[in-house]
């Protein structure tokens, strides 16, 4: 719950974003750059821009509360509608990347910690050292070069699906799931091929911190007094490593996974640009570069809400995993 004040802070921030921005917000909401003076004045009144700042803030909060985030100049649609359409694409990408990262980082970290100083350990550490150094947008582009241009394994790196495949009936908005529901295996494969490169380049960047923290906390766990106790009564190796060491070691990983997820939400901006992924981040970025601020505002708010959700999930997971934390 501690992240709720942050959400409020972001609300105020986005409001200020609107105020501080160069130019007159009323102009943005008018029918176009050529709108007459009267029209702008009318909109100014409609938007309440003639009122005092606190009043405006109240109005703004009220609007947000009703789900009204304004209208985008680029698409001419309500921002909420645009975001709702694009959000599944971003989430599908982020979740897939997180899954890839967790599935590879945790075992790597554990392996490295079990045999410190071994070749595996050095390999993992080298990989971690290099992994955090390569920017997501560079690794994404290099993946395109290798798998699309050189090997021809990957499809044209544009969008969620190639032009020849028809979209499945939308149920969840997650293509991988929608195709499965529709029973369209070819479609699923096509979507998967589009998804894998961007997900991979996003995952590559966060595998390193995850593997690093897993290794470190596993080392602490393995060297702890309670693992020694477990060994002193002759518990089996598996029991010691899994039930005693790993379960304790996973606690900091949960916290870091939350932060990693946030990082990935940010990295979405870069990856979606590289792969022309039709998600919320690329939508916001396009809007930002063409001075269309309502979508940017909406995007930041959306990210903040997602972030509150993520924090909540992390808190709940942590509370389940660690009896010392009580969920209030």
């Amino acid at each position: 719950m501690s992240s709720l004040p942050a959400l409020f802070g972001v609300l105020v921030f986005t409001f200020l974003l609107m105020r501080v921005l160069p130019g007159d917000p009323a102009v943005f909401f008018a029918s176009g750059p050529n709108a007459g003076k009267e029209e702008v004045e009318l909109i100014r009144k409609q938007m309440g821009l003639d009122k005092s700042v606190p009043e405006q803030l109240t109005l703004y909060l009220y609007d947000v509360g009703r789900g009204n985030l304004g209208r985008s100049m680029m698409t001419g649609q309500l921002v909420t509608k645009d975001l709702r359409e694009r959000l599944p694409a971003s989430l599908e990408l982020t979740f897939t990347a997180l899954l890839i990262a967790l599935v590879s980082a945790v075992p790597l970290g554990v392996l490295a910690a079990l045999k410190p100083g071994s070749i595996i350990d050095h390999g993992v550490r080298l990989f971690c050292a290099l992994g955090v150094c390569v920017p997501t947008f560079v690794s994404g582009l290099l993946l395109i070069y290798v798998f699309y241009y050189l090997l021809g394994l990957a499809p044209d790196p544009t969008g969620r699906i190639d032009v020849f495949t028809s979209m499945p009936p939308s149920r969840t908005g997650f293509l991988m799931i929608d195709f499965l529901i529709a029973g369209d295996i070819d479609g699923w494969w096509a979507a998967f091929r589009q998804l894998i490169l961007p997900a991979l380049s996003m995952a590559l960047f966060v595998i390193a911190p995850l593997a690093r923290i897993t290794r470190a906390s596993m080392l602490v766990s393995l060297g702890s007094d309670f693992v020694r106790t477990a060994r002193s009564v002759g518990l089996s190796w598996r029991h010691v490593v899994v039930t005693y060491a790993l379960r304790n070691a996973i606690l900091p990983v949960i916290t870091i996974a939350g932060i990693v997820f946030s990082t990935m939400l940010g990295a979405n901006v870069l990856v979606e640009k590289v792969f022309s992924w039709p998600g919320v981040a690329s939508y916001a970025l396009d809007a930002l570069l063409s001075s269309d601020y309502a979508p940017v505002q909406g995007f930041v708010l959306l990210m903040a809400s997602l972030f509150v959700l993520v924090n909540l999930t992390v808190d709940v997971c942590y509370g389940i995993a660690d009896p010392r934390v009580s969920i209030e």
Partner: protein
Amino acid sequence: MTEPLLKIDNLHVSFSTRRGVVEAVRGVTLSVQEGEVLGLVGESGSGKSVTGFATTRLLDAAGRVTAGKILFRGQDVTKLSSDDLRHLRGAAMSMIFQNPRSALNPIRAVGQQIADAILTHKRMSKEAAHAEALELLRAVQIRDPERRMAAYPHELSGGMCQRVMIAIAISCNPALLIADEPTTGLDVTTQKVVMDLLAAIASARGMATILITHDLGLAARYCRRIVVMEQGRLVEEAAPRTLFNAPRHPYTKRLVAASPTASSRIEDLVPEEERGYVAIGDRPKPPPAPGTPPLLEVRKLAKRFDQGAAAVAEFSMTMAAGESVGLVGESGSGKSTTSRMICRLIDPSEGDIVFDGQSIGHVPARDFHRSPFRKDIQMVFQDPNESLNPRFTAFDCIAHPLMRLAGLRGGDALRQRVEECAQRVGLPADLLPRFPHQLSGGQKARVGIARAIACRPRLLVLDEPTAALDVSVQAVVLQLLDRLRREDDLALLFVSHDLNVVRMICGRTIVLRNGAIVEQGESRALFDNPKSDYTRELVAAIPNIEIETRRAAAAL
């Protein structure tokens, strides 16, 4: 004589560290009979714990047995495969560790942890193991065991955690228990309860026990035979009585002398031939002229933190110049808080402190550094390892108060004063340019004392000044403090949990419990005839060498 249960033969253990190979155990030979209780005593770095860990093959990755044999029932433990070792651990020999709270898995219910140990060695259903774990909790006298089964270590007190640890260790009825400093870090009263329980269980189930400890008194109380180790070697082996009455090895002599007992005097702590100066008997000081105000008067002091209950309440005392007063209590008794209030490092919530006739209790702690009394009240802090600024040399540490409080600005005058202080505490001048990490524990303690007395204070508050030191170092530090008291007419407020030390160094003692004074009076009278139940309990809990050896003699 029958074949011993455990026979360690010429054991060598070394550790590979970044500074090269360090030999921790160099040729230890000892044996333990079935059902026997053996005490393994030594100061830090003596290799006593390493010997214990080598026996169960639980050394960390850096440690290695380089030579020697460890025969358990005739089987060499050092040559066992990891599988055979697993069947041995817990089932035939098990360990009890120091610091029980961290020795238990923090996120697993204690009942589950006991059941884990049982299921490893016995074929039975989970339910049966659970029932047996419950039985064990009952055996270690945990109240309300049904409810405690599901408790996590953080919900239990330190003493309770150690009982759970004992339950785990005895779960499969091993023939040998190795207890590594099982009571260090517990309060004295808890210490006694836990040790009594451990001894009773071991003797009832016929388990042999190796008690590894730095405390000679503890070993004397519970062991029939004691082995003394120094720097990886075994120096003496004897029954407690022989060991205390007629120690043969010089190290043992020093150790026995340095261990404070109920009747030991401060000058006896170091054997006569090593004392280096002539002991002066405690000349009774002439009583202060009537009407002289006491040096320190504390009136109804109280402290509450945040919204919590009072940490200290209604604390009143007086001290005369040159007097030494002991402040005794278990953890949470408020003795540290009280000492910090008197030292004006934290503000009291209520009450007043009068020093030399002037009220200083109302000067906020944050402004007290400007008070003229700042240099009169100084403090020696608990752990010498943490009481010196890592970026200051020993010289800087001692010079600091001189520069801030005595107005010295460097140069020869400062150097002279620092060297003089160092000399008074027995710190060689060539150690002054060293940084704390280049000094030993005893040397750091001396620097801390030199810093505190540099400005010639009139009241010195000592917060467990020897708790982190080995007994032989403690002996020297105590003598030093007592000498300074007599030479400077310095008043000592000595905060400690160690009753033997307080009895020896303090003329008067105040017993604190839960922030309130339980009893106070002349130390000797208070310890010999405690009036309150709590003090009686405290006194009874101190392992006391003389009484123990007498008891052992009677038993024979």
